[in-house]
């Protein structure tokens, strides 16, 4: 296996102190290769969102180890001071709802990230346009998010997550609001993008329709992950 895009060992997270504290994660292990799309499934309250927040460097784990692209980012404590830049350059996010910025058009919603990373407006917009074309929403480049259908909005959100070519994309229930056909289409896009950009994508889902599309699954229960082989059915 190549250097993993993301590697997690014994990751734990405890909310609160003493007897009132709750262990949301009790030693999570994950290893995901570049270009791989894995599912993360589990019942409500099992720790999925906490894990996603830890992986996204949004909350600090209590213990364990985490590396992105072979670079240690957490080892009992953050090894990187500027977590905002870490997220901007290394982690893409796709949410259950697209959460596009309503006052920016489609191109600028996507181009904002490369601009924040220091790219020129022209270069950032070129990158955004290229990705939007690849996701079949290039023709809506000047539209406002409110003018797009739900599926189009989700594709723009995927473009935003991928535009800085991050090694890891975290997708939180990205197909929840979509019907079967659109949900499978989103998964098709994620698989294609993961392969094309060598990005590891972790998809948190409850969606029974898309579970068979994963080759590998992590099932999370009581704060621990259990690796399973998926069906890997073609989308």
């Amino acid at each position: 296996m190549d250097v993993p895009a993301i590697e997690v060992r014994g990751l734990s997270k405890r909310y609160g102190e003493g007897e009132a504290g709750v262990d949301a994660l009790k030693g999570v292990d994950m290893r995901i290769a570049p270009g791989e799309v894995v599912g993360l499934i589990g019942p409500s309250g099992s720790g999925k969102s906490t894990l996603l927040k830890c992986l996204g460097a949004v909350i600090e784990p209590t213990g364990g180890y985490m590396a992105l692209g072979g670079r240690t980012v957490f080892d009992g404590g953050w090894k990187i001071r500027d977590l905002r830049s870490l997220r901007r350059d290394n982690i893409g996010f796709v949410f259950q709802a697209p959460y596009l910025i309503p006052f920016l058009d489609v191109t600028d919603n996507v181009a904002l990230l490369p601009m924040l990373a220091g790219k020129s407006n022209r270069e950032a917009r070129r990158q955004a346009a290229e990705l939007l074309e690849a996701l079949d929403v290039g023709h809506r480049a000047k539209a406002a998010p409110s003018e797009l259908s739900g599926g189009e909005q989700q594709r723009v959100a995927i473009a935003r997550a991928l535009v800085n070519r991050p090694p890891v994309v975290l997708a939180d229930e990205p197909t929840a609001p979509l019907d079967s056909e659109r949900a499978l289409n989103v998964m098709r896009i994620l698989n294609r993008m993961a392969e094309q950009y060598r990005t590891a994508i972790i998809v948190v889902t409850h969606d029974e329709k898309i579970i068979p599309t994963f080759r590998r699954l992590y099932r999370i229960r009581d704060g621990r992950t259990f690796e399973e082989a998926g069906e890997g059915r073609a989308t």
Partner: protein
Amino acid sequence: MISLAGRDILHHWAKYVFTGVGLGLLIGVTLSMAGIYRGMVDDAQVLLRSSGADIWAVQQETLGPYAEPSNLRDDAYRAILGIPGVAEASNVTYLTMQIRQGERDVRVMAVGFEPGRPGEPPFLVAGRRIARSHYEVVADVRTGFRLGERVRIRRHEYEVVGLTRRMVSSSGDPMVFLPLKDAQEAQFLKDNDAIVNERARTASNPALNRPGVPGLLDAILASQTASRSVNAVLVRVASGHEAEQVAENIRRWKHLEAYTRAQMEEILVAKLIETSARQIATFLVILAIVSAAIVSFIIYTMTLGKLRELAVLKLIGTPNRTIAAMILQQSLGLGLIGFVIGKTVATLWAPYFPKYVLLLPGDAVRGLAATIVVCAIASLLAIRVALKVDPATAIGG
């Protein structure tokens, strides 16, 4: 980098424009209040300049004709003329009164002056100067009088022969200039019934109506009806002499109070309109607080309305300074929209105020600076809320 503030303003343009209009009207009122104060100061300065005097000689222990009643004998000017450095001296009277014009009353300051001497209106915009000794007036255009119109002042009718402009009292009443004798009569002469009554009382007084002294009673009655008082003597100083030195000589040798132009300006600006100035300043502070509250409330509610977007922006790596700058720019943008509207409306409605409103460019610049500061302060609460948004809230769970 994209202007996030600019895009958000364009996205919510209607909210911004309507809030900007409301804020603009407030700023317009603020600028107008400042303009009213400036107008009062300017009116006072014009009043002093147009009188053509360097020194005002008035009754002892009074502040002069504009601030307090002052009464001098009308021959005091002769003694003043004898003081070294006095080039000209002339009597003037000032009386605030109502003049009937058709169906309406016009409040004016009637100025009695001696034609060709200090106290005369410095210029006319229509008509001619007073040429006869009686029953002609020159009026400020704000009285609404027309050339040739006849107006009644006390017992007599006067013809308006000339019009002047920007001649108002310290309280903003337009001036009407009339010959000194007529003005003295209007101010000091008793009504006919009072004169008849006074004559009867005098005639019944044996000390004043002695049988053996023919002419005594007539002389006393004549002195009772004569108007020999004026309110001030305007003095013009000869070149080469210091006004303060001449004023000091008048105080010392003539037992009168004498004020130089600088001192009279101090009385008018610092004393007479001081209460008004404080009133206006208080009002300006209240308006600034109200404006800040409005901007603060609008920016705060707009920020609360996009907490999710702010969480997403923070999650994808937008620096705090970019988010703070966005909110600050929105607040300043709102202030600038408001200022442009405020300056425009203040300029448009200034001529319709009954009193002179002087809008100075310097005040506009200060108003703009105050608007920027107020808007910057008003954005602090919203910035604080935005910076406290947890990026984790963008992720469910």
